[in-house]
């Protein structure tokens, strides 16, 4: 199918690649279908995009939280394991949503509510972590 996007123009997308979010994302409950897009197929770039399939203008920059935060850990409770049909932890992909403000040096990453994706079943959910030490706004470029 042809996926229309504001940022990347029209992208050719195999429908099997679409990730379904049964509950949408907090604040974007109506947007259930997303595709992961990147400039670099080799997976070497930790930044890529979660583009809404239904809304060409809705695109999140996402990153690999394990690559930016030492000892990052994610917990998924039983209910969400069921929702995402997770049977093997190796099929789980964890992403963190990035905010890029006008001053790009103030970019921040939401480590409190990572996006968890079952890459085999193509199911996803943004799951708020109970760990209070995880920041909602982790400023990547501040020391």
């Amino acid at each position: 199918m042809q996926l229309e996007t504001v940022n990347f123009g029209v992208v050719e997308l195999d429908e099997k690649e679409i990730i379904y979010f049964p509950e949408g994302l907090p604040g974007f409950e109506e947007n259930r279908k997303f595709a992961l897009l990147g400039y670099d197929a080799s997976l070497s770039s930790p930044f890529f995009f979660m583009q809404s399939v239904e809304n060409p203008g809705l695109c999140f920059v996402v990153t690999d939280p394990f690559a930016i935060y030492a000892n990052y850990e994610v917990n998924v409770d039983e209910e969400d394991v069921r929702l995402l049909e997770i049977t093997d932890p190796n099929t789980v992909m964890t992403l963190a949503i990035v905010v890029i403000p006008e001053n790009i040096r103030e970019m921040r990453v939401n480590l409190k509510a990572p996006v968890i994706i079952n890459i085999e079943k193509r199911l996803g959910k943004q799951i708020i972590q109970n760990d209070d030490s995880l920041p909602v706004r982790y400023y990547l470029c501040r020391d």
Partner: protein
Amino acid sequence: MMTVFLYDTICVVTEKSREYHNRSKEFASYKLRSDIVLVLSRKKGETVMIGHDIELTVLDIQGDQVRLGIKAPRSIAVHRKEIYEEIIKENQCAASSKEINISEIQNIARDKIHKNSGKNKGNRITVQKNN
């Protein structure tokens, strides 16, 4: 067949009632809203049942702080409302990021990125860089 509920250990949530006082006007309008089913007073140590498997206990009251104990099946996510609202706000900020220049982002963040721990697997679709 017997239904067994797995209970988490009681988790303690400290809510600042100051914020609540600040929102007293808001509260007045809550009372008029149909989705507020019950407004009631509880003393320290007393409990409210929500449905048949959620217990809300007032553990302690000190000044303007109330400590609540929440006992619920593991399947129920318990979060402070502020956290959920904060996540919504942060998602909205993220969605309004414009003119994304990924190479600039990468340059700036380069020294902050560790080698991928290999915990993440998955594929993504490659798009052509336009410019």
